[in-house]
C-alpha cells in the first residue's frame, strides 16, 4: 500500500480520503491528511509528544472524534503534529501518541483553519487492499 491520503473538493468545504493497510494506519493517515491541509507537513518538527485517548460508540464516529480532538488541540493549544503512533484501537476507543511542536508564525504557514470533522458523506470501507475513509471537514 503506497497511497497515504488525498485531498478532495466539496462546494463549501474540503474533504480527505485516507488509506491504510490496517485500521491503525488509516487513522494515522487521516490525521496526516488533516495537518497537510493546515500547514506544510515537512515544516513540523517532532519537538514533543502528547498521549491522547478518544472514545466513541462505533468506528465511524471514532474517526470523527479523533479528528475533532486534533482540531481542538490546534485551535486552543496551537499545536501542530505530523506523526501519530496508534497504540491501541477498538470499536469504541483509541490511544495514540502524537508528535509535533507548538505553532510558530516564523516557521509555519497556516494554509486554512479547519473547524470541525463532519459526518457528511462519511465513508469507512474495508477492501482486499486495506482500509479507506472519506471525511468532509468544515472550514
Amino acid at each position, binding site marked *: 500500500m503506497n497511497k497515504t491520503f488525498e485531498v478532495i473538493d466539496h462546494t463549501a468545504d474540503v474533504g480527505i480520503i485516507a488509506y491504510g493497510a490496517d485500521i491503525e494506519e488509516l487513522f494515522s493517515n487521516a490525521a496526516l491528511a488533516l495537518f497537510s491541509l493546515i500547514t506544510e507537513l515537512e515544516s513540523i518538527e517532532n519537538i514533543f509528544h502528547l498521549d491522547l485517548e478518544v472514545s466513541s460508540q462505533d468506528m465511524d464516529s471514532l474517526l470523527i472524534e479523533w479528528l475533532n480532538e486534533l482540531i481542538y488541540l490546534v485551535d486552543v493549544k496551537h499545536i501542530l503534529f505530523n506523526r501519530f503512533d496508534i497504540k491501541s484501537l477498538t470499536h469504541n476507543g483509541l490511544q495514540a501518541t502524537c508528535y509535533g511542536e507548538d*505553532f510558530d508564525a516564523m516557521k509555519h504557514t497556516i494554509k486554512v483553519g479547519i473547524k470541525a470533522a463532519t459526518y457528511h458523506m462519511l465513508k469507512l470501507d474495508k477492501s482486499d487492499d486495506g482500509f479507506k475513509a472519506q471525511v468532509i471537514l468544515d472550514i
Partner: protein
Amino acid sequence: MARWQGQLTKIDDYRWEIPQNYKTGMRVPGLIYANKEMLESMREEQTLEQVANVAFLPGIVGHSFAMPDIHWGYGFPIGGVAAMDVKDGVISPGGVGYDINCGVRLLRTSLSEAEVRPRINELINALFRNVPSGLGSEGKIKVSQKEMNQLMVEGARWAVKRGLGSEEDLNVTEEGGCLSGADPGKISDKAVKRGMPQAGTLGSGNHFLEVQVVKEIFDPHIASIMGIDKVGQILVLIHTGSRGFGHQVCTDHLRVMEGAVSKYGIRLPDRQLACAPVKSPEGQDYLAAMACAANYAWVNRQCIAHWTRESFSKVFGKSTEALGMKQIYDVAHNIAKIEEHIIDERKLKVCVHRKGATRAFPADHKDTPTCYKEIGQPVLVPGDMGRCSFVAVGTGRAMAETFGSTCHGAGRMLSRGAARRSVKGQDVLQELESRGITIKTGNFPSLAEEASQAYKDVTDVIDVVHHAGISRKVAMAIPMGVIKG
C-alpha cells in the same frame, strides 16, 4: 458528482415543488425559490436531495424550503428553512450549522463617497489594526471563565455594559442581541476554552468587514426610515459568527444527538441530520447551548461594531455621533428559534431552523423593532466582495409562506479548491483594486477562495425573493474597502 434527476413541479416562475411522493418517508413536500437558470445549477449537486431528506424529519410542517442561494451543506442544505411542531417535532444541530448565529450587522454613516474615497487606505488600515481578524485571531478583550459564563447568558448587552456600544444598538438587533434560555451548564469545558480567546474577533473564511457605498435605492421611503438617504452614502457591513465556540457546541451536541436518534427510534436518510425531540432532555440541552453560542456571536458583532466606530472616529477626527454611525440592523442567518406561526388558520408553536437563511418578519409583527413597525424587519443580504450587497425588508407573504424567512447571501458555486485553481489571490487583489476596491487580508490563498467567480450573483438571488414576494428589496451597495478574515 451525479446530476440530480428528481422531479420538480412548477408553481410559478419563482416557485418549484418537490412532490411529497418523490421519496417514501417525506412528511411534507419541498418548496424551492429559484428561477429556471438557478434550478439547472442546483441540479448539478445533491442539494435538492437534501431538501427532500429534511422533509423526513418528525414534526416538520408546511414545506422543507430552499432559498435561491441554496447550496450543498451537511445534512441540511445551506439556504434551507424547516419548521417543526414543538409538540411532536425535532430539533437538529445540522439545521442550524456549525457557525451558530453567523450573521450580519449593518451600520450607516452620514459620510459620502467623496469624503471617504481619498482616505480609504488609511481607514482600512485603521480597521485592520483595530478589529482582530484572520486564522486563530485572538481578541483584545480578555474574557475570564466567569465573564464567559455571563456573556453566554447576556449576549450583546454584556458588551454594551462594558461601554462597547449603546442600548440603541440592542433595539435594532434580532432578539435584542440575546436569545433567552441560554444555560452555560450545557457548554463543555472544551467549548469554553475555544471561545474565551476568540471573543471579539472577525475570524477567517468567508467572514469580512466591508466599507460600502450606496449605489441604488429601490424604495426611498423605506430606505429613509432606515436612515439610508442618498446614493453615495457610506455604510459598513460586518459578517461573522460564533467562531470556534459555536463549532465546538455543534460538535458536542451532534454527538449527543447521535445517541438520541436510536434512543427515540428516529429514522433518518442521512446521519448528519441527527436530531432529538424538541421536548426531550437532549433537545432542550441543545437549545440551551445553542442560545449560549448565539449570544456569543452577538457579543462578537457588538464589539466589532464598536471598534469600527472607533476607527472611523479616529480617521475622520469626529465623534461617532457627528459621523451618524447608527446601527441599521443585525440579523442571524444560522439559528433555530421557537416561534408562533399560523398554519391552516390555527396558531402553532414551531421550532424554525434557519440555516443560511434570514428571518424576514413583516411590518407590525411584535418582534419587528418599534422603529421599523411601519416597514418590516430589515433583511441584510451580503454578496461576494467583488459585486454588491442588498438591504431588504420582511413581508406578510414571507410570514404566511416561509415562516417569516428569506435568503441570506450569494451562495457558493465553486468549491474552495476549484476557486484556487481558477484564480490566484494576488490576481483577485489586483482586479478588485483596479475597480476601486481596497482589500486587506492576512491570507492570500483564502482571497482566491472568496473570489466573485466562486459565488452566484447575489442580484439574481435577491430578484427571486423580491418577485416571489417573501422580501422587498430596498437598497443596493457596492464595496469600497474590505477586510477579509
